[in-house]
């Protein structure tokens, strides 16, 4: 009995000392957790939404050049501008919380599917197609990325510049301006000089922030990355995969779907590391400061999920028939990642962030 007590005592001392050696002082930890929250707007949301606005302006310019003097070269420039803007947007879907969800910017830009019947009757009509007319349309399935995609690529992906009608040209011009305007509002909503949603993260836990505690802000970020992981693996990929239906693939005209999916998960990765173009402090530092093993595991699972997309070589609408194993591998990697986010990262945050 006495011997046992001695062992027990030794064990407690060992455990206690292990604990101390790895743990930064709680003061440093609190500073770190605050810095990560203020880096989120500074290094991710504000610069990234700013880039989204720049890319939207570039799309608008390329569309203007296309419709001024149509040529297949200008058409491919416009298509590339669409892809470039799409890439920033899909990466920003790694954190769908705050103004983007509160003010419905997501459906305004990215409603799917395209309403062909309405679009045909709109284009066949004499209804004016100025930006204000576009904004007055009753459904969002006539606005945003996908109608632009449809006009730039055509239903079979083989549109030629010469075949664009005057009304199609006017329509995508106004759509691209509309997209640019929405991106401006979205970008402003985070900016300290305008909507300043940033202050909610910077001041999390203080009066005036929508987050009553810092933990709430961390959980908002975590639920957002869990959400996108689920959306890609169990929604966007699963639905056409399970139904064997290429009609329900997200970006079918441009064949851009696999890139879209991968960019969503790169967006998640960016959130974890706290970076857009410049590396700020991210969740990884918070985790590593108290549990190196968990951080390693998270990093590895994210990297596995991101790289798994590269095995899907075919456009997604074909891959659901011919590369099912590769799709399932990616879905498994996403399921593993989601499981780790929910059952390891989230409990870690709840346990460690006490303010």
């Amino acid at each position, binding site marked *: 009995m006495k011997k046992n007590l001695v062992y027990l005592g030794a064990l407690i001392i060992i455990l206690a000392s292990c604990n101390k050696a790895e743990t930064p002082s709680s003061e440093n930890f609190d500073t770190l957790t605050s810095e990560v929250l203020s880096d989120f707007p500074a290094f991710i949301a504000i610069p990234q939404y700013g880039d989204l606005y720049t890319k939207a302006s570039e799309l608008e310019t390329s569309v203007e050049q296309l419709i001024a003097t149509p040529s297949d070269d200008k058409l491919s420039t416009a298509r590339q501008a669409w892809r470039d803007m799409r890439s920033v947007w899909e990466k920003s879907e790694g954190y769908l919380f705050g103004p983007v969800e509160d003010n419905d910017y997501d*459906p305004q830009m990215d409603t799917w599917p395209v*309403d062909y019947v*309405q679009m045909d009757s709109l284009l066949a009509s004499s209804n004016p197609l100025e930006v204000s007319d576009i904004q007055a349309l*009753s459904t969002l399935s006539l606005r945003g990325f996908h109608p632009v995609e449809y006009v730039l690529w055509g239903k079979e992906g083989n549109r030629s510049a010469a075949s664009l009608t005057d009304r199609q040209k006017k329509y995508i011009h106004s759509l691209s301006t509309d997209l640019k305007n929405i991106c401006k509002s979205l970008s402003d909503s985070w900016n300290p000089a305008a909507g300043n949603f940033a202050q909610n993260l910077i001041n999390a836990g203080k009066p005036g922030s929508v987050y009553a505690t810092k933990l709430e802000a961390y959980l908002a970020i*975590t*639920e957002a990355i869990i959400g996108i992981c689920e959306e890609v693996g169990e929604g966007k990929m699963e639905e056409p995969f399970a139904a064997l239906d290429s009609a329900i693939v997200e970006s079918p005209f441009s064949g851009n779907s696999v890139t879209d999916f991968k960019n969503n998960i790169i967006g998640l990765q960016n959130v974890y590391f706290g970076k857009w173009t410049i590396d700020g402090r991210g969740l990884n530092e918070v985790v590593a400061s108290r549990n190196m093993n968990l951080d390693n595991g998270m990093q590895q699972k994210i990297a596995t999920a991101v790289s798994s997309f590269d095995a899907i070589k075919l456009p997604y609408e074909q891959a659901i028939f011919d590369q099912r194993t590769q799709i399932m591998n990616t879905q498994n990697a996403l399921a593993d990642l989601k499981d780790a986010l929910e059952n390891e990262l989230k409990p870690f945050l709840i346990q460690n962030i006490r303010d």
Partner: protein
Amino acid sequence: MRVQKTLIVALLVSTPGLFMMCNKPGEFAEENYDPRLSGGAATVFDATSKSFSHMIEGLKEYDGHIHELGDGQFEQTFVTAPAPVNSGLGSVFNNVSCISCHHNDGKGTPTAGAVNSSLLFRLSLDGHDDHGAPVAVPGYGLQLQDVAVFGKQPEARINISYTETEFSFPDGEKVNLRQPEYTLYNPYYPMPAAYYLSPRLAPPVFGLGLIEAIPESTILSYSDEKDADGDGISGKPNYVWNPYTQKTELGRFGLKANAPSLQIQVAGAYQQDMGVTSYVFPNESSAGQSQGDVLKDDPEIPDSIMNSVVFYVRTLAVPARRNVTDADVSMGEKIFTQINCSGCHQPTLYTGVNVNLPTLSHQRIHPYTDLLLHDMGDGLADNRQDFLADGKEWRTSTLWGIGLFQKTNGTPFYLHDGRARTLEEAILWHGGEAERSKQAFVQLSTTERKSLIRFLKSL
């Protein structure tokens, strides 16, 4: 011998204990329950903007797939028929997807006719039909569709204006109350001289499987139509016609408890709000009207999709309470009972047994509703009858999750038409059977009032 004696003594001591356990399963003293578990086993620990969107635990793998299928469908945008995907929108409608009104599976925004609008209007003429249902307005039906696909005309447009009045608490704190006024304009077809109009804001859709599982006998036990106990609160069940089962049933869902089942609620939303037909309601909302379509594509959604969306809302978990041990939250909870808010907003109910969904079965839940109709006074009256609900009666709203509306919606809106922007405003609009409680609320000290609000925000 000694051993036997011990055994007998042990038996004697333990037997009453055993019997006590057998006697009242699941009923312990209040402090032995975790107060955070608003939905019992169907509770989820998440207080973010996604807190209304979680699947309950414990579903079988196959059921989980059905939930996910319904989740995906809940977000689908419908487009004009004929289309390869999500065909069947309109021709007249209120919005294009479930999620565009039930933002984050939560409550909506009280505007009408815009792409993010979540307010719809029920219409009717005087009287009721053979089943006790409201009488449809010729050319319009029972709901106004204020949006139309390109080339068609909305049935009418709605203008919403608010008149603000200032209310002062005895301690001097002021609250602005806004009374809405709704005006129809640009009708596509002549409106009758007299009609009834009732605004309905999209409510949250989580926890509905638990509400569905509350035994009828429990709901009826709260009913006190003649107010025999003299507390000023009567409480009346709504009995409504179920067009699918062709029976009169107890109404549970909807702001006036006018929907008997989740199936009717969901199918009604597809048909009336989006113009999408299903096996439950195979006719377009605009059938027989000049703008109705002539396509032979009904039902527009497969039965499996319809059923998966019903299953989805049935299996959405309830968010756990926060800050339950804070002193002011506990104080607010006591006040909630003291001023008899709990007279209608029943804190604790038990669900019945459901062998298919154990997580929803025999759960101790805290929805804060009795699911009965109550006279809420002139301020909130829509003056429109809906089965047994008269023009002043509304079904007691659930309060679970009410503290998270800001998270799920950005700007929170309360009450049936979203007129209240704060919980104080929402309480101050209570009248009729809730008048006594409202007056008691007004008379609370500043600290007590703040505690009550803190308690509500912990839900």
